[in-house]
């Protein structure tokens, strides 16, 4: 526990020391909110309460999805190896980073929701708070997989590959336009990605439909995604260890 707190605190201090990174991770969803949101709200497809949950998933994909980039440098400078010779468990080495990423994402998500509120978003407070929790769970899985990817592929490939991979994942999630508009084949493909269920679960929360099957699926899929992500990430930290 001490080790986890020490690691998370250390990484958080580093993140807050670099406000640019903090803002940059939320830039894409923020641009969609301001430059695309007004169009969406007037399109007749749905309200702000339909768009903003999608942007939260986009945030999880871009902010937590690029988290692995930080470990590339730690790997290069020997910092990672120095951590791996300590007795700290491998899952703690991963979670120290992932918890930082979750806190960063939470701050970014609150900022986006507040900005959206100013633009016209209205949603029940309980639903919004639950949505923050759900998107945090999603980000734990996403950040863990991002570290696993960063420790697996060649260092210089990580940024281009990840920034490319998140685009189809975001489009297939229905984050920008609901998948109810999709032709059958696209709807099927979309259902193969976990983010589709997260988006629909978050939309249910923003609509106050707390008993809907969309919410149940969103929660279940996000939890499974987080558990699988942490397991895969820990496996990469464990790799080749005695």
């Amino acid at each position, binding site marked *: 526990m*001490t*080790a986890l707190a*020490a690691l998370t605190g250390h990484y958080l201090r580093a993140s807050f020391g670099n406000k640019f990174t903090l803002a940059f991770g939320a830039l894409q969803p923020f641009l969609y909110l301001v430059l695309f949101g007004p169009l969406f709200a007037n399109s007749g497809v749905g309200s702000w309460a339909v768009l903003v949950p999608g942007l939260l998933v986009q945030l999880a994909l871009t902010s937590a999805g690029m988290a692995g980039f930080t470990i590339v440098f730690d790997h290069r*400078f020997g910092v990672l190896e120095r*951590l791996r*010779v300590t007795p700290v468990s491998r899952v703690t080495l991963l979670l120290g980073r992932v918890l930082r990423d979750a806190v960063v994402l939470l701050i970014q998500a609150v900022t986006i929701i507040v900005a959206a509120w100013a633009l016209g978003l209205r949603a029940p407070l309980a639903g919004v708070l639950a949505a923050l929790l759900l998107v945090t769970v999603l980000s734990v899985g996403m950040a863990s997989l991002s570290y696993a990817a960063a420790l697996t592929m060649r260092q210089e490939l990580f940024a281009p590959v990840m920034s490319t991979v998140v685009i189809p994942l975001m489009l297939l999630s229905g984050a920008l336009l609901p998948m109810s508009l999709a032709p059958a084949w696209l709807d099927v493909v979309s259902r193969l990605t976990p983010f589709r269920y997260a988006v629909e679960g978050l939309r249910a929360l923003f609509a106050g439909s707390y008993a809907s099957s969309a919410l149940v699926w969103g929660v279940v899929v996000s939890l499974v995604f987080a558990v699988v992500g942490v397991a895969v990430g820990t496996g990469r930290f464990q790799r080749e260890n*005695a």
Partner: protein
Amino acid sequence: MIHTRGLTKTYGQVEAVRGIDLDVSAGEIVGFLGPNGAGKTTTLRMLTTLLRPTSGTATVAGVDLFADPAGVRRRIGYVAQGGAFAPFSPVGEELVLQARLYGLTREEARERVTALLAGLDLPGVEERTTATMSGGQKRRLDIAMGLLHRPEVLFLDEPTTGLDPQSRAGLWDHVRRLRDRDGLTVFLTTHYLEEADALCDRVLIVDHGRIVAAGTPEELKSAHGARTLDDVFLAVTGREPREGAAA
């Protein structure tokens, strides 16, 4: 302090280490030498739990490497060749974090870091980053990182590569002092044979994944009728010590 029998590491069909038997006593400074690709680094990474051996047995600091790698990690310090600091983070923060990962409280960690840095002729560098430090200072910082938790054995991988002769001699003094004062056991790889001669109580030469010569520098030189360890090295491996070496 370190005992291995038949330690091997195989990658697919390639036998990187073919059976290492070694014994290092408490308080010894042992040099681990060998041509590039002989299995030095692989062996070091196995002894420091960074690489899982394919077969064999090993105890490090009294702990079974296979049964309790975390126990080994608690008792050893490891100083990698490439260093352990990112150039953009204050070194004091990194050292305090590392100490806390070994279970020290924040206050204990701060005190330990201050004392260690003073002992290694690096007083008051906590706020600096390695970007502004010399090669010799960086190596001493790396050694401080490896000593935070008062390990019983310190593993040093090529500790003086790239250092000027003066910094190198200074580092030897620090290593000797750690052994003399704290009884630290030191296991180091080097391709500077004059370093092994000057610093090490005993030398192990590894080639093709096996130990091919072992003894004090004097024993090895007299056994091979050689004037220097370089000649011994050439006699047992058939290669020049710095052949293909990076530095």
